[in-house]
């Protein structure tokens, strides 16, 4: 585990997380699919079917209600309307059954299908009955019969009664006449006539009553009896009529005719009535209606049970959905938990494999900072962290080696520095010795010179002269030496000065450039100040303009105030009617006051602006002056810089001349030296004219002078040497010090030896 690459470890963790997420997603997807299917089933099939069933049942009930209304109503037109509507809705129901059948489970044993078949069967039975009922309802025979009895039949009967009554009156009148006349035979016929007429009346009334009674309360078995009775009555009436007619005379013919006509009219009416009563459609249709109760009940039961089963199925689906949902929720909670736990464990191991080396690395770095280079990490991992620690170890080892090398080298330096220091010390000592030795030599040489002078007694003068000449040439050479050294120094100084002048020339050029720049900027600033001035003037001008406008506003305010005052006065004159006007006038006055105040405000502000702009103008002017002075001073600077650069150029020229002069001097010195050489040669030649002794003396003197000069030179060189040796000594000391510091620095680190 430790040696796997970091990449692999991280990949593993992420892989586990991804897997758990994918598992959650998959579970969610599948379960949601199942859920969706169930819901669809619920909505599409089951609830739709339930809705259809209740719709069909509603329509069935409506058909029934309309049928009742058609049966009950007495108006033919209304009856027909209801019947038509009933038939329409019945057709709708018929059409709905196939759709319903389609959405119910087709297997014949399924309880839903059984219920549906029952429903359908009951409906069809009902349809058959309904057809009959509606047809009967249309006929409405009982009502018609009733109308007939109360209408035409009643008319006829009343007519009969009236005719009979009139006839009876006539008969009575005749009877009284006859009674006075005491005609018994006539009385007898009249009496018989009267009785017959009474019987006719009775028959008519009975028939009417019977027909009235039978309109609403007749049964089929009674119909035959009714027919017989009516026929009997009619026969009786005809018999009576014929009886009367045989007995009657011409006077009674119109009544006979009318009564006969009435009875004749009554016959067809009675037969019509009989027909209607036989039909008896209303009662029959009502009976049929009630008989249709049974199929309708069947339908209701079937519909209810169908609905119930559908509802049960809905509930079952609901519970199924709920179960699915809860199981999904559980899964969706568990799976991520498992995945997360697993990946947390892996992560823990992973971090351990990283943090432990990190901690060790920190400790290692601290040790290195302290200077302990002997520490190593020595981690055994083979992954990236292990590689890193190995590399750090290598780096530490090489660093340690380097430090060791430095330490050794510094030790070597230290040794060398001490050696150098001792050497230089020795050199110093030796050069000091050399100086003393040179001193000794010089003194010996002087002794030699006095000896030589005594030796050259003979040629004392010449030798003195030669000596003086040689001393003079000595002096000259010494002077020449000093002069040459001075000339050298002069030459060095001249070069230094030339360098400085060069630098100062450059600086002057720079200054002059800056001064010119400054001048141009100052010009720009001046022009800007001018433009600002112009702007200020413009501002001032605008301020004066605004002032004028303000004055106008003030005038307007004044006039308005006056106007308001006059208006108030007029308003008071107007009395009561002017009150409103007075208020308006007051408002106007206030307005005028406000305008005046505003104008004053503006004027004040304008004054403020003007004063500020005046201040600004002054400031600008001051700035302009300052800029001009700056400009002038920068001009002066430029001038003086120019002068300085001219002067520098002149100095440079002078310096070159001086260096040329120095060269001349050197040349002259060379010439002088040459002259001195010539002089000494001449002296030697002059001495050659003298005796050998002089020559020897001069030779000796020359040699002595040579030696002396050499000694001086040597002394000089020795002095220089001493100085150099001192310098070397000092340098060696410094080197020793530095070596010591280096040792110190390197000594902080501990390395393996």
């Amino acid at each position, binding site marked *: 585990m430790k040696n796997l690459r970091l990449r692999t470890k991280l990949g593993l963790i992420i892989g586990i997380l991804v897997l758990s997420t994918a598992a959650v997603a998959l579970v969610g997807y599948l379960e949601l699919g199942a859920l969706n299917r169930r819901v669809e089933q619920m909505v599409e099939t089951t609830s739709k079917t339930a809705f259809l069933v209740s719709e069909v049942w509603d329509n069935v009930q409506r058909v029934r209600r309309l049928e009742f209304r058609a049966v009950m109503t007495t108006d033919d037109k209304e009856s027909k309307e209801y019947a038509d509507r009933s038939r329409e809705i019945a057709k709708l129901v018929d059409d709905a059954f196939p759709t319903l059948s389609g959405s119910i489970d087709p297997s014949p044993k399924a309880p839903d299908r059984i219920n549906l078949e029952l429903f359908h069967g009951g409906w069809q039975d009902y349809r058959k009955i309904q057809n009959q009922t509606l047809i009967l309802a249309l006929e409405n025979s009982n009502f018609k019969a009733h109308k007939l009895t109360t209408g035409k039949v009643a008319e006829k009967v009343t007519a009969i009664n009236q005719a009979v009554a009139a006839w009876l009156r006539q008969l009575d009148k005749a009877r009284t006449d006859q009674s006075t006349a005491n005609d018994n035979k006539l009385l007898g016929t009249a009496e018989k006539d009267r009785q017959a007429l009474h019987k006719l009346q009775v028959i008519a009334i009975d028939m009417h009553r019977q027909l009235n009674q039978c309109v609403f309360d007749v049964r089929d078995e009674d119909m035959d009896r009714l027919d017989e009775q009516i026929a009997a009555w009619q026969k009786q009436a005809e018999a009576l009529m014929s009886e009367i007619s045989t007995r009657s005379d011409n006077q009674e013919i119109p009544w006979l005719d009318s009564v006969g006509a009435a009875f004749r009219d009554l016959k067809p009416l009675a037969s019509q009535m009989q027909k209607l009563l036989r039909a008896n459609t209303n009662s029959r249709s009502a009976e049929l209606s009630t008989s249709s109760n049974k199929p309708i009940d069947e339908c209701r039961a079937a519909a209810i049970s169908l609905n119930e089963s559908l509802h049960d199925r809905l509930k079952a689906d609901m519970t199924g959905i709920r179960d699915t949902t809860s199981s999904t929720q559980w899964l969706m909670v568990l799976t991520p938990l498992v995945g997360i736990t697993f990946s947390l464990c892996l992560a823990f191991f992973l971090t351990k494999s990283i943090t432990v080396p990190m901690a060790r690395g920190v400790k290692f770095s601290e040790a290195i900072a302290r200077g302990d280079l002997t520490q190593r990490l020595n981690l055994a991992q083979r992954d990236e962290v292990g590689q890193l620690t190995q590399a750090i170890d290598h780096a530490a080892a090489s660093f340690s080696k380097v430090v060791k090398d430095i330490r050794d080298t510094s030790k070597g330096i230290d040794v060398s520095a001490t050696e150098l220091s001792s050497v230089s010390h020795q050199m110093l000592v030796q050069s000091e010795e050399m100086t003393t030795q040179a001193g000794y030599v010089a003194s010996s040489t002087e002794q030699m010179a006095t000896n030589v002078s005594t030796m050259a007694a003979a040629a004392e003068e010449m030798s003195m002269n030669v000596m003086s000449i040689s001393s003079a040439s000595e002096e000259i050479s010494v002077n020449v030496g000093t002069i040459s050294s001075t000339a050298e120094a002069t030459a060095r100084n001249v070069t230094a000065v030339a360098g400085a002048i060069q630098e100062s020339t450059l600086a002057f050029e720079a200054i002059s450039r800056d001064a010119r720049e400054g001048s141009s900027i100052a010009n720009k600033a001046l022009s800007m100040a001018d433009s600002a001035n112009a702007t200020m003037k413009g501002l001032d001008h605008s301020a004066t303009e605004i002032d004028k406008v303000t004055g106008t506003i003030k005038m307007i305010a*004044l006039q308005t*105030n*006056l106007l308001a*005052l*006059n208006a*108030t*006065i007029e308003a*008071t*004159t107007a009395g009561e009617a002017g009150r409103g006007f*007075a208020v308006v006038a007051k408002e106007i*006055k206030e307005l005028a*006051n406000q305008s005046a105040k505003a104008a004053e405000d503006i004027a004040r502000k304008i004054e403020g602006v003007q004063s500020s702009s005046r201040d600004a103008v002054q400031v600008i002017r001051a700035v302009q002056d300052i800029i001009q002075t700056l400009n002038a001073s920068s001009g002066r600077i430029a001038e003086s810089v120019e002068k300085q650069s001219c002067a520098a150029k002149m100095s440079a020229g002078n310096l070159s001349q001086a260096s040329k002069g120095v060269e001349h001097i050197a040349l002259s010195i060379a010439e002088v030296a040459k002259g001195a050489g010539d002089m000494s040669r001449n002296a030697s030649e002059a001495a050659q004219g003298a005796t050998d002794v002089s020559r020897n003396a001069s030779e000796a003197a020359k040699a002595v002078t040579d030696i002396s000069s050499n000694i001086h030179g040597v002394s000089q060189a020795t002095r220089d040497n001493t100085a150099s040796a001192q310098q070397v000594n000092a340098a060696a000391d410094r080197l020793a010090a530095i070596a010591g510091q280096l040792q110190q620095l390197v000594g902080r680190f501990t390395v393996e030896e």
Partner: protein
Amino acid sequence: MIESPIADYNTLSNGVGVFKTYCTFLVGNGLFGTEASLVKEVSLVPFVTPVFHVPDAVRGYVNLRGQIVLVLDLKGILLRSATPIDDDTRLVVFRSCLGDPFGILVDRIGDVVELHDDRIEKCATGTHANGGEIGTLPEVELISGIGKLADRLLSILDARKLLPYIDKEIAQCRAASHNRE
């Protein structure tokens, strides 16, 4: 413009008497007023054409929209000094019901105030707000009462008496000049 508050007519009123409106103006240091029903208008002062041989109080005539109006100097009448005509000076012109059209020069114009009759002290001996001498002629004749405003006293001028007073003055002047001759 002076801001004089409207008289407090909710208090100290007996219920009898009426509210009268007064035009107020400043002459010298005193606040004077006259009945607004008598005032025709208040205007700026146009150029005054002087008239000679008249008392100083009569300043002359002005042409006000075609009408010639006599200009009297109220300061001249009451305080015997001349009103300098500056930016605040106004001309209060009275109605023609008082006779010939005339107007008075005032130093500054004030507000139109309403004053109840109860708030007016009728004065007979004529000590007016300016604290002038008691019993001097113009005050007695011209000032008809002192009105009490919320923070000041108002000397109520009777405009009807102005013209007769001036006529009297002119007559006196003429008499004096005649006497001199």
